[in-house]
Each structure stands twice: as C-alpha cells, then as structure tokens.
C-alpha cells in the first residue's frame, strides 16, 4: 500500500499550495505524516526520479514532482530510463506490466 502514500504526497504537492509550502519550510514533518518506507523517503528527498518511477509512481503525477525540482523535461525522461538501468524493472503499478518499457 505504500505506493499509495508516495503518490498521495506527490499528488498533494501538485495540487495543494499549503502542502508545497510545508514541503519547502518543514519537509521532515510533512514527510512524517505519510506512511512511507525508508527507500521511498530516500527517493523523495534526493529526489531520485528514476527510483520513484521504478517504485511505480504514475508519470502523470511524477512529471509534476520533477517540475517542482525544476528538472528539465528531457532530463526527466532520461531519469526514468536511468532508473530502470540502476534499480531494475518497474516493480508495481501500471508500468510493471511491461517493466516500464515497451515490449
């Protein structure tokens, strides 16, 4: 179920300016209010967009998180490819069906 809370955090960062403000000002307190594993926390803090992709985060949510960190579009796309190389195929969620790549 943890993927749910990773996605929820990012969804709320996308949609709720108050959450974004807390993310800027008091990050750890905000993160503590979500049910996240250590690996997920690492991926969010770094941010490791590739790992988040491998953890199953939906691109329609993830792209906004990359934008929040001012990561250019082409780098965002490349991070996902690199993520699969480094961390292995997408583990769960939508993209797990084809390991995150076209068959």
């Amino acid at each position: 179920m943890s993927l749910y809370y990773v996605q929820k955090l990012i969804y709320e960062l996308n949609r709720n300016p108050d959450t974004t403000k807390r993310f800027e000002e008091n990050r750890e307190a905000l993160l503590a209010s979500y049910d996240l594993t250590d690996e997920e926390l690492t991926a969010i803090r770094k941010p490791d967009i590739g790992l988040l992709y491998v953890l199953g985060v939906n691109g329609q949510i993830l792209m906004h998180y990359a934008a929040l960190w001012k990561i250019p579009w082409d780098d965002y796309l490349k991070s996902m490819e690199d993520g699969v190389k480094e961390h292995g195929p997408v583990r769960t969620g939508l993209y797990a069906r084809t390991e995150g790549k076209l068959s």
Partner: protein
Amino acid sequence: MTLVFAGACSHAPGITGRANRGDPEQRKNLLESYDKMRLAIKSSGAEALIVIAAEHFANFFMNNMPAYCIGMADYYEGPIEDEEWLGIKRVKVPGNSELSEEIIQIVMNDIDVSYAQEWKFDHGISVPLNFLTPNYDIDVIPVNINCQGPPLTPLNRAYEFGKSIRKACDSINTKIAIIGTGGISHWPCTPDSGKINEDFDKTFLNSFIFNDKKALLSYSDKETYEKAGQGGFEIRTWIAVAGACEGSKGELWCYEPIPNYAVGCTVANMEINYK
C-alpha cells in the same frame, strides 16, 4: 430527441503548449478540423456541451476514484496547469447545475455515477474547449471516466454509459452536444513519450467510424497497454460516444500523428440516429 451533435477529439497538452513544434501542414489540418467541429456544434444549436474526458489526477485520486463522474456546478475553472506551459489562459467556464442534476438523476438508473459540485479542468478538457468554444459562451457539463488508476471500468460499461447519457439527453428539453476526448495510442510522461502506434490508432478509428460495437469492446487492458500505452486506456471516452450513438456511423475529419504533440491528433464526428 435533443442530442444535436456528437464527436470526439484529442486533448494532448502539446497541441497548445508546444504549438510551433508540430509539422505546419499537419497542424493546419488539425486546426481546420477542430474549427469544423466548432462550427458544427454551433450550427447544431446546442445549448450545452457534455465533454466526456479522462483527467490526469487533477480532481480525482485513489482516495476516492470514481469510475464515472459528472459535474454539477454552475461554473468551473481551468486549466489548472501553468498558463504559459499549456498556452491557454485560465478562465471561468459556465456550467448548469440544474441541467446536470437532471442528467445525473436519469443516468443513475443505469450507471452509478459520482457527482461533483466543483471541478477544475486540466488540459483534458481545457484543450478541446480552447478550440471548440473559444469564447466560453456555452454551458459545459464535464464528465470523467477513470482511465488513469486501475482497476478501470470495463469497456462495455463505458459503452453503456454513453447509451445512458444519450437516454438522458433525449428525455430533456435542451439541445445538447457531446464530445469525447482522449488518446488514442500514447505514452505520456514516460520514457516512451512521443511514440505513436499508427496501426493501433487506425484500426481503432475504423471501428469507431463504423460504430462496430463488438470490435470496440474487444480490447483487453493488457493488449491496450502493450500496444497503445497508458494513454490508450482513454479509448473509453471514444467508446462512450459510440454508445451514445449506437447504430450510427461516424466520419474521420483528421488523423495526424505528430510526435512533438505525443499523440495521433484526431478529430471525428458521429452521426446521430434519431430513433
């Protein structure tokens, strides 16, 4: 008998946001086709426009993910995206809560829709409106089919949903136009972004144009995902329009695969067979 127009079209954010990066000839054809649809809606005398869309985590999330949702507000706002990025100015779009409620009451006999008295449009609705109702002078009723977060609604339910919307339109004394907006094949926000499966698109469009119910409902999510990407799940919006016009035929006005817009850009209409 007050459904007066039906059609379907693309909504990719690149169409407005990266307008100049598309091939000029292809873009010209696309814009002319949107405009043809705008004029067709206008000359139909439609007093309200139902947009059957598939949003991208703008209003709906897995904490309460509706299979089907219908807006029931007197106004909406959109786009939620950065105006520069999408190339569309944020506006207040008129709605009609009473008309929505009438429709919802009827649809609820067949399809278990959620309703929403507030709704912020993302590009999934704002891009079509930008071309089809550029003056925002017609009441819009937004509709969402969950095409993002599985478990997804079965395709035959999407077809039934269209039939039910049609039933509602035809029993209400207001002239209503319907458009569906989605896919077809695309891989948004993934490493495969920009890829387009023309074969998949053309086969699907052919089934749409002939309103071939059996063919339209024959896709499994597995097949769709493998051949048409996550974006392919949005065929549900087209299938709903086919359902609304069961037994009639359509016409393809535009199909331009534009990699820089990350989708095969499509505009099609569907005849209305008055029963």
